């Protein structure tokens, strides 16, 4: 197969499989934060700030996959 086609398939697989984990994790994190806010509405400020920072940390995994896909597409040494 042409290396360019393999690179494209690899990029698509990297993003599609790699975003499953962060998606599930972000869902769980938001659900837990909603639960905490419902139990303790006066702590909503602290919880949402921590939630934002935590979501950014989780999201980084998906961003890594995106960067790998971009490297495969635009900076691949094998496809020239």
């Amino acid at each position, binding site marked *: 197969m042409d290396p360019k086609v393999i690179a494209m398939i690899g990029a698509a697989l990297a993003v599609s499989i790699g975003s499953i984990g962060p998606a599930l994790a972000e869902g769980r994190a938001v659900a837990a934060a909603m639960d905490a806010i419902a139990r303790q509405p006066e702590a909503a400020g602290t919880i949402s700030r921590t939630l934002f920072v935590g979501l*950014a940390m989780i999201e980084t995994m998906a*961003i890594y996959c995106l960067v790998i896909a971009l490297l495969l597409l635009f900076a691949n040494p094998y496809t020239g």
Partner: protein
Amino acid sequence: MQTSPLTSTVLFHLGPVTITRPVVTTWVLIIVLTAACWLVTRRLKALPDGRQAVLEIVVTGIAAQIEDVIRKDSRPFLPLLGTLFIFLVAANLSGLLPGVEAPTSKLETPAALALIVFFSVHYFGIRARGLRGYLASFAKPKLIMLPLNILSELTRTFSLMLRLFGNIMSGEFIIALIVALAGLFVPIPLMALEILIGIVQAYIFTVLAAVFIGAAADTFEER
């Protein structure tokens, strides 16, 4: 299809140094922000007028957020972190102006900002604990954790850079794709989402920098 998001357009050469488009955008942003701050703070009054009141809300808001995160006086950290936040908001939102690319959507600007955070973490750590105390904190809680602690310093700087770059770049990339596919009014909701993402990413970058600096300057263990 646009060109690779990993490279940036070279505008001109200054001797051996190549000046790319994000660098020029950054210069313009620096000049605009400096001029705006100078204009507003030129005649400060005890009873603020409209513009001064807006600026005071921004500054005290950032100071309160930093104090919430690091749980001590925010004054030593406010110049660095406040500038970081205001510059990042301006830089992330500048991509929405027609004909302008956000400088943070190229790899160099996030890398430079992450390096600034990396070095200022050590600066504030050494200033708060002294050189010996700060270096000893890498061997906490046991000496065997030393390589892991050093590795985490490097990887978190790297992830700080990639997070900002990936978010802003992917937003611009998607808008460019939608413009190429669907033309006039379809990209507008995505651009509204991009405003939200730009401000949230600026906030997250600043809060993470505050967390790292606060952890390095934390003298709680010795007390």
